[in-house]
């Protein structure tokens, strides 16, 4: 069809269907809610990023020169809270998931559209509480809120932040609930479970963790707020309470939460590797099963955060061996992604650069995780920068790489426009280099004994800290570049066709940007996912 005929026949897309603030703030269209979430999580990513810059500036010098100790304590706490609860957990599911899940399932919208909009308002409300706490003076308990410091000894805004985390947890529950019901009940005709794209398997597994884990952090922050607000001792040792019980309740959620953060990114990577190799994922069923296995086994390992906390050595041993088990599905995924490239038609577009970056960095993150789960080693490296490096490799090297890869992969579908190839590839490269320069030195610092949350450290470690801070500035530049060219592309970017990458998947069979009801007619699925046949490929 020539462009003129297409313009006439094409129904207005979800962006042009309606205008005005009300059309955005009262929308129940999952695609618009995804854009609302994109704005909200980006705001918190900037906030968390500013605190990260402050931390790296402070650590340039062994003495606490840039700020007082209690200021530094608030800065690293707010960096943690903003990044984890308001960016890493919601980013992929609420932005890319909200946009793509209904389309990939072949439905007109999620099962509960009003609940979906409510989840955004709950997210913003939780964010408001936390922002209030930040502006009013911050909180200095660390993102882990360990008692009895957080309940009795800290005189900062712990209750406000705790309630902020309590509220934003419900946004996560609502999203998880929506995805589970949509994937179970609203699949297009012919779309059996084993024809689902791996992005949906990953989000189904993530939703299981959201549903089964988030309520426990909700009750934990509630008990924290009750103990602090009414001055009664639930975790207070003087009254017979046990601070280690708080840690059990906290980590019961917070370890599965790291799988909430990384599983969606794994789903994105499966899509990217398949699309840019134009080949079905190697071992589709094993990769799909691995996602669910991670979600389930992820609930049996939380004690590896508490090996030196006063937990019994026998419980620690059980948690350690189960932590080895939970690492196997991740290894399976890595090997399957690599094997997918074999005899593929690999093109190194920007999303693929992020995917390959993810595979490399997540491997290092995962392997150092196994090292931390090894009992004898964790005693020495627990609560040191070795741990900081590990979780940044998995979160920044993994989840954020996956988020950026997914964003660049589906940007043409979301905005209907293409972004410049050169700048996007340059940004991906800068991010990869800056990231490694920032966090690899921290492994070395960690094993030498640099404790977490210290801003005064022995002089002999300054060189590594300076390297890390230098890396952080490169990483910061890397993150800023996409903001410019993506916004630029919305107005000036060349029009992207329905299928700019020549990829398989229901989302590429509708227009870019898609109409409000996603498909002109409900699609019928007849083939395996990632079915690439030479004659069928239509580019542009």
């Amino acid at each position, binding site marked *: 069809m020539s462009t003129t005929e297409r313009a006439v026949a094409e129904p207005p897309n979800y962006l042009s269907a309606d205008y005005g603030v009300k059309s955005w703030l009262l929308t129940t269209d999952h695609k618009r809610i995804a854009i609302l979430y994109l704005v909200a999580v980006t705001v918190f990513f900037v906030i968390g990023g500013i605190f990260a810059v402050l931390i790296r500036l402070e650590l340039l010098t062994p003495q606490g020169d840039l700020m007082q100790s209690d200021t530094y304590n608030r800065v690293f706490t707010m960096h943690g809270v903003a990044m984890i609860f308001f960016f890493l957990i919601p980013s992929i599911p609420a932005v890319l998931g909200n946009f793509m899940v209904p389309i990939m399932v072949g*439905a*007109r*919208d*999620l*099962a*509960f*559209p009003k*609940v979906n909009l409510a989840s955004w308002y709950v997210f913003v409300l939780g964010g408001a509480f936390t922002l209030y706490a930040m502006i009013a003076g911050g909180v200095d308990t660390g993102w882990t809120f360990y008692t009895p410091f957080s309940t009795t000894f800290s005189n900062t805004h712990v209750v406000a932040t705790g309630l902020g985390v309590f509220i934003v947890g419900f946004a996560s*529950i609502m999203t998880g*609930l929506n995805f*589970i*019901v949509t994937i*179970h*009940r*609203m699949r297009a005709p012919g779309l059996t479970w084993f024809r689902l794209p791996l992005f949906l398997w990953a989000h189904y597994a993530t939703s299981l963790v959201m*549903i*089964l*884990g*988030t*309520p*426990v952090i*909700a*009750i*934990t922050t509630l*008990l924290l707020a*009750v*103990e602090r607000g*009414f*001055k*009664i*001792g*639930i975790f207070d040792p*003087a*009254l*017979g*309470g*046990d601070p280690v*019980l708080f840690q*059990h*309740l906290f980590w*019961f959620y917070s370890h599965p939460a790291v799988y909430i953060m990384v599983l969606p990114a794994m789903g994105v990577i499966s899509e990217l590797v398949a699309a840019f190799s134009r080949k079905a994922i190697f071992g589709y069923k094993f990769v799909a099963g691995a996602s669910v296995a991670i979600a389930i086994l992820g609930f049996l390992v939380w004690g590896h955060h508490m090996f030196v906390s006063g937990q019994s050595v026998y419980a620690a041993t059980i948690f350690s061996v189960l932590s080895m088990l939970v690492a196997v599905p991740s290894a399976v995924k890595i090997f399957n992604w690599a094997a997918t490239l074999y005899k593929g038609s690999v093109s190194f577009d920007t999303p693929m650069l992020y995917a390959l970056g993810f595979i490399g960095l997540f491997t290092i993150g995962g392997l150092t995780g196994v090292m931390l789960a090894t009992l004898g080693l964790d005693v020495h490296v627990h609560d040191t920068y070795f741990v900081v490096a590990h979780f940044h490799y998995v979160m920044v090297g993994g989840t954020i790489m996956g988020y950026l890869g997914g964003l660049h992969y589906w940007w043409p579908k979301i905005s209907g426009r293409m972004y410049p190839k050169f700048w996007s590839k340059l940004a991906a490269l800068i991010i990869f280099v800056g990231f490694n320069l920032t966090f690899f030195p921290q492994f070395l610092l960690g094993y030498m004994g640099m404790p977490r949350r210290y801003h005064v450290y022995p002089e002999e470690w300054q060189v590594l800290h300076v390297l890390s801070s230098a890396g952080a500035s490169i990483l910061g530049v890397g993150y800023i570049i996409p903001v410019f060219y993506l916004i630029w592309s919305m107005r000036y970017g060349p029009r992207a066709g329905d299928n700019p990458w020549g990829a398989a998947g229901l989302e590429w069979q509708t227009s870019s940007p898609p109409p409000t009801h996603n498909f002109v007619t*409900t699609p019928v699925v007849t083939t395996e996912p990632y079915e690439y046949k030479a004659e069928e490929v239509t580019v542009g």
Partner: protein
Amino acid sequence: MASPQPLLAHHFDTLDQQRESASLGMWVFLITEVMFFGGLFIAYIVYRTRSHAGFVAGSHELNVMLGAINTVVLICSSLTMAIAVRASQLGDRRTLVRFLVLTAILGLTFLGIKAVEYQEKFAHHLVPGPHFAWHGTTPGTVQLFFSLYFVMTGLHALHMIVGIGLIAWLLPRSMRGRYGPDYHHPIECFGLYWHFVDIVWIFLFPLLYLLGRSEHV
């Protein structure tokens, strides 16, 4: 009486799909409630095993008679709710309205009895915090018991209040005959929620009131 709103939402294909989605969504929500109260129950179990003496002494302060009456009241409300759901399935408007009101009344009765109990604790200075007074042994863990008592029963009572509020929201629609064989999942889902709140009390009552009742302090 065709209601103004269409029965089938735009993004569903069939009424069955809509009802099954609502039901599945409700059950998944109830799982989050199970884990939410689960965090409290594990705290109670752990502390009970660590400070047996204090928890037995504390639980002896509770009024078993009022607790038992409240259990009976809540089980009755489960019955009336089940009958209300049945009425909505059959489109029997009068029975639905009557038994929804009955359920609300029983819920309010439960909250009334709970208020009496709380007032008793307040009078005996057993509310944790600065005014807590305990002359026997182990004041620390007795206060811990009452902290958990108030958080657990308070959270349960809050869920009761939300439940009664939802009945108030469902009542006018039921009166207008909105619910029938084709469209009754709002009542059915609310019934699941109400039965869940009853089940929480079915466990709270023995855990708080009955365990250790035979041991002398």
